[in-house]
């Protein structure tokens, strides 16, 4: 059981990640706010507490890996990496600018701390599976964490990867399924529903499935990761019941990407700043 202090610190880290994510997206005026915010808390837990990483040595051999198979959520990862000191945060305020190191879809060749390239949905989970197996073949005991979107789970490759991970018993691969209920064209149930549900699907593929009732709750996320790491012999899927856009304006719109003018971004950034200040005030 995590102590209250850790949880408070991680909540503040998550609020900081949300603020920086908005600043990064605002630097180009458009981006995937919704899908970043739904996983901001899980990213905060990983980068604030769980991952064995060294910002000064991003590719150290025994590091834990974090892969955004839903590659369009790049900004939320850049926020965490910047706050951890992989690069000066300001560098990321160049999202999608000419020759930037920060494209909205994660790119291992451009950004320090990005382990694998994604953006063509379905591919990141396969890449993560290869990383997990490659590490195991070399006797490296690190964990590979991978985020897939609920919309992304329309892709057949996700299920090819799912059967592969189970067949090869990749118990050092932990998949966060961001069940935020919306994809680009509307609600997942309207666009392409998931039959018995994503938890049932991963179970049927032989995974250890942990359903996280509130996927934006720090405490529940920490407990679920502990459970996943304790389980051996199969990969684990943490099905996160999340809110698309959580903690921002996008919580109401559920939109896949947001295009707005500077005045709008100034307003939402000020709100995120005051949310962060309030949490810090509570903690003090």
């Amino acid at each position, binding site marked *: 059981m995590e102590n209250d202090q850790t949880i408070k610190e991680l909540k503040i880290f998550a609020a900081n990640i949300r603020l920086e994510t908005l600043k990064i997206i605002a630097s180009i005026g458009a981006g995937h706010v919704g899908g970043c915010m739904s996983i901001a808390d899980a990213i905060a837990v990983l980068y604030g507490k769980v991952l064995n990483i060294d910002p000064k040595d991003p590719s150290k051999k025994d590091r834990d890996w974090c892969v955004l198979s839903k590659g369009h959520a790049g900004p939320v990862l850049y926020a965490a990496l910047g706050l951890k000191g992989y690069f000066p945060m300001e560098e990321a305020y160049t999202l999608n600018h000419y020759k930037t190191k920060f494209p909205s879809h994660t790119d291992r060749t451009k950004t320090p701390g990005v382990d694998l390239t994604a953006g063509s949905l379905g591919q990141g989970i396969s890449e993560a599976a*290869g990383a997990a197996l490659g590490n195991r073949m070399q006797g490296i005991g690190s964990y590979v964490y991978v985020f897939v979107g609920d919309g992304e789970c329309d892709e057949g490759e996700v299920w090819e990867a799912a059967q592969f991970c189970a067949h090869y018993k990749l118990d050092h691969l932990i998949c966060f399924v961001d069940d935020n209920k919306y994809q680009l064209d509307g609600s997942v149930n309207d666009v392409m529903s998931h039959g018995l549900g994503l938890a049932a699907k991963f179970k049927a593929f032989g995974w250890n499935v942990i359903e996280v009732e509130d996927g934006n709750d720090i405490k529940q996320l920490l407990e679920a990761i502990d459970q996943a790491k304790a389980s051996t012999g199969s990969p684990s899927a943490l099905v996160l019941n999340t809110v698309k856009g959580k903690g921002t304006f996008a919580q109401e719109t559920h939109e896949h990407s947001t295009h707005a003018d500077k005045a709008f971004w100034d307003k939402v950034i000020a709100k995120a700043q005051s949310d962060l200040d309030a949490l810090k005030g509570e903690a003090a």
Partner: protein
Amino acid sequence: MSYTLVFNDTKDPRNCREGYVDAMYDLMKENEKIVHIDCDLIGCVGAAKIQKAYPDRVINCGIAEANAAAMAAGMKATGMIPYLHTFGVFAGRRIFDQIFISSAYSNLGIHVIGTDPGVTAGVNGATHMPFEDAGLYLEIPGAVVLDPCDYTQVNVLTKKLCKDDRLSYLRLIRRGFKPVYGEGSDFEIGKAVTLTEGNDCAIICSGIMVGNALKAHDVLLKEGIEVSVIDMFTWKPLDEKTLIKAAERCGCIVSAENHLISCGLGSAVANCLAANHPVPQEFIGIKDRFGQTALQEVLEEEYEMTSEHIIKAVKKAIQRKGI
């Protein structure tokens, strides 16, 4: 690079695929980072030998090529050296996006082995007959594309690839084929082999077309026509120096490939020569057609790829020099 030419138009008792498997056996023995990844076609490529010797490093992904390709790229990111085998039809059409993004764009070069190139798919028929596979790989920036002709060349190139970090695609003939090169021959990726040096026309060929070109050479020689036969087994990066020199020396070209001419060796040759030293060029290869089921020999006739077709093309190219 040194070689011996042993072509005498007779079949090799060894299967070409053994050239790959024997090379992998040696490589895996020397280097524990080397992995053979397959898609339920271990039996087809004859990889049981390496599976038995190195069971932990032969990974069967089942009939799920897209995952296999992106997974291989992820494995490369950890420092392993993956070779991925599937039929050429799947290596090209089915996993193009995974190869393009997860491997090539990500700078995680893997080595893709596509079996049964072009008409060598024979009675497996149209659905298993890739005429466009290498063309797809030619479209990928920085890729290496290889079309070897026999056991020895396959064996040498498989070994050379292990030290090459680029994405590569090697078209692997499965069955026994007519040997061109003697044992001990050596090749460099990106360096063509000039097998004969005539000045009337240059035949730029690879794979199964090398034997057909050598046969054409012998017939033409009796008629007083001297041709250069150039084994351009590396389609990319193309050996432009050798190609341009041949065009300058001969003044006309015949390209001969077991592939669609619209997106293969012939078009790569034409691109290079149009920009550097334009000469008349005749194209031997598949012309805007699908595959079909038949014995390879029948298909070579059907798609106008035999030595007789090459002879006609050489004569036409020479005639066009005067126009």
